[in-house]
């Protein structure tokens, strides 16, 4: 009887010591893996002049890059492309619209269509018209996977203080892909 009790105690003790040893690696291990969640966030919002107004042609969308300081894990880039933006100058009033090149479906980079006026995503052929609106499948003969229109970005024309030239200034933001509505990434 006493023998059985001792045996049981020793089994319990072995298990306890084993659990303690496991926790020495296990607990910091979990913490270490979870810590990476909080590190290296994306650049939230970048306001930047991306093109001279004179460089834009009505009806010809122009793809421009937005650069910013970027930290990729341990590396610090002084200037790094943090997003691409499609600029569209309308023929009538000369106003400029800006769309992020990130497809609202799964985040691929939207490119210009074959006609050079509309947009198409190379991943699943989601097609958009010159104003960034989803084209119905009847127009393209293909299923349109985009859940919403292209994401418009805040955009204004500013005058350079020194040269007096008109520049297009864009506010780059990130939006959650896959949703029917445009939701900014927090």
């Amino acid at each position, binding site marked *: 009887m006493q023998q059985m009790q001792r045996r049981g105690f020793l089994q319990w003790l*072995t298990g306890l010591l084993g659990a303690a040893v496991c926790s*020495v690696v296990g607990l910091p291990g979990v913490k270490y893996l979870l*810590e990476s969640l909080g590190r290296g966030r994306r650049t939230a919002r970048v306001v930047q002049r991306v093109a001279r107004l004179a460089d834009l042609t009505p009806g010809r969308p122009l793809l421009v890059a937005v650069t910013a300081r970027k930290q990729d894990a*341990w590396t610090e880039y002084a200037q790094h492309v943090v997003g691409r933006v499609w600029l569209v100058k309308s023929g009538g009033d000369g106003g400029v619209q800006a769309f992020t090149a990130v497809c609202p479906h799964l985040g691929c980079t939207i490119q210009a269509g074959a006609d050079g006026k509309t947009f198409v995503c190379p991943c699943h052929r989601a097609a958009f018209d010159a104003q960034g609106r989803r084209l119905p499948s009847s127009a393209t003969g293909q299923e349109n996977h985009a859940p919403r229109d292209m994401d418009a970005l805040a955009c204004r024309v500013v005058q350079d203080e020194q040269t007096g030239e008109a520049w297009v200034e864009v506010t780059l933001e990130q939006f959650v892909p896959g949703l029917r509505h445009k939701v900014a990434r927090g």
Partner: protein
Amino acid sequence: MLERLNRWLDVRLGHRRWWGAWRARTLPASPSWWLTSGSLVFWLLVIEVATGLLLMASYSPSLATAWPSVSYIERTAAGSFLRGVHYYTAQALIVALLVHLIRVVACGIFRAPRELIWVTGLLSLPLVLTWAMTGNPLSGSQQGLAQVAVEAQIVGSTPGVGPTLSRLLLGGEDVGHLTLVRLYFLHVAVVPLAAAALLALHISQVLRHGLAPRENNQQPSAPVPYWPYQSVRNMTVLALVVGIIALLAWRYGAPLGAPADPDLPHHPRPEWYFRALFELRRHFTGEQELIATLLIPTAVLLIFLTFPLWDGLFGRRTASLLRTSTLLAGLAGWGWLTGMSYHRDLYDGEYQASRKQDRIWAERARALAARGVPPTGPAELLRNDPQTQGPLLFARHCATCHPWLDKHGQGLAASEASAPNLYGFGSRQWIEGLLDPERIASDHYFGRTAFAEGEMVSAVQELAAGLEGDELSARRKQLRLAAEALAAEARPPEAPPEARRAAAGRVLIAGELGCTGCHRFHSEGELGTAPDLTGYGSRSWLVAFISDPRHDRFYGERNDRMPAFAPGPDDARNLLSQRELALLADWLISQQAAPSDTPRPTPAAAPQLTSR
């Protein structure tokens, strides 16, 4: 429900039989603390694999990313702790393996039919050492990459296959990106697979033949089950060792030196387990080095491998005695060589200074890395750091003539001091000394230069000549105000009292003290007779002055012996490049801030740098 699942699985896996066989294992004698060494080695290996896998989630092997990724891991407490556990467990593993081997020899466990247990166990020692050897350089530190460069040379000196092996290991002629990828490949794939194969054979042999009965021991009346009587001992020892490892990892962590940079002087040393070979190599030179690096280790391994055959050769009793004495002689020799190597380094001032400097650079590099590493690689951190490069440049180019010593005599001594001590140059204290009639002609300032007999020295001395009492102290006060004003040229004062005094000093410089009689100071005075005081001691002033002191803006033709370090626009023809000038000037300026403090981190550089 659980029972049904268990039964379902058991029909397919048969795991209950395995578990039953494991539980039914019995001990040849009573449970023993001695028997824990094998289990300890096994569980330490498991910890190495577990922590290694975790580190793999953040590590990136290449010259540009290895060190930054490791310093990135080190920046969080959990990452630093895990790396520490990985590091100290490796050392514990080597010790545990040695203890295990000693126990096996002591208990004679290699006799038939257990020869393969001995052979697989013994071969695991060089394998584990290779494992450690391929792991240490992965941090991309100065020390690690210096080690691998030397190891590649040793491999390369093997006759025949050496050069090819060395190229394969390095991934080319020199240490580079591929070196780290190759080491990583060996460390996380090849060596672990080989170790797993060896371990599987070892353990299956142990299970097949059972634990060896002790020599001259009667079988106990009733066999004692392994579980839990031996298991609890195994776990206790493991918990104790892991406790020590965790404490070391928590308290000290794994070391991380400065990132590898061939431009930084460094004294490489191997890890403690290779110190004996390192020492042994000292006694063999030239062609004979092969004896130390290849022949002796191989011979020792072969002698140990043949242990099971000795019984047949010498008889059981003699063989036993011979084995024990061989083992003891081997351990003693190993210990003696290791001790000698450490003893030598302990009394090697140059090595100790280099280690101290290494620690300072490591700390500095890690502090800089916290702000982000440039994409071109971690070596840039210290290469573009005035605090690191300033003293090195000063020692190389300036300290032939200029000392840089604080009032305790700490800092960079000049090899042939013949020019002003530049410690705190441009600070208020330094300028006060220069404008002190009693100190200007001392060795600290112009004493050993041609200017000792020059107009500046006589002008300053004349300012106080014949004055006594209140007049003298009033003059001294004026000179201090002038010093304040000149110091403000490099560092505009922040607080109003200093700014007021500097303003008063500026008036005196152009007025009563008559400095602008020779010197230009903003809109007053002319160039061409004495150095420009506008922006005195500032970054641009220093860069221009060091570039060419013979320029009209400075000493012109009256320049003593100071060389022009960058007289032309072409960096290749100049003694100092524009980049180096900027680093030197930035460092000198940073030392103006608190010149009375003991300078950091430069003094450690002194003994080493001046001895070169």
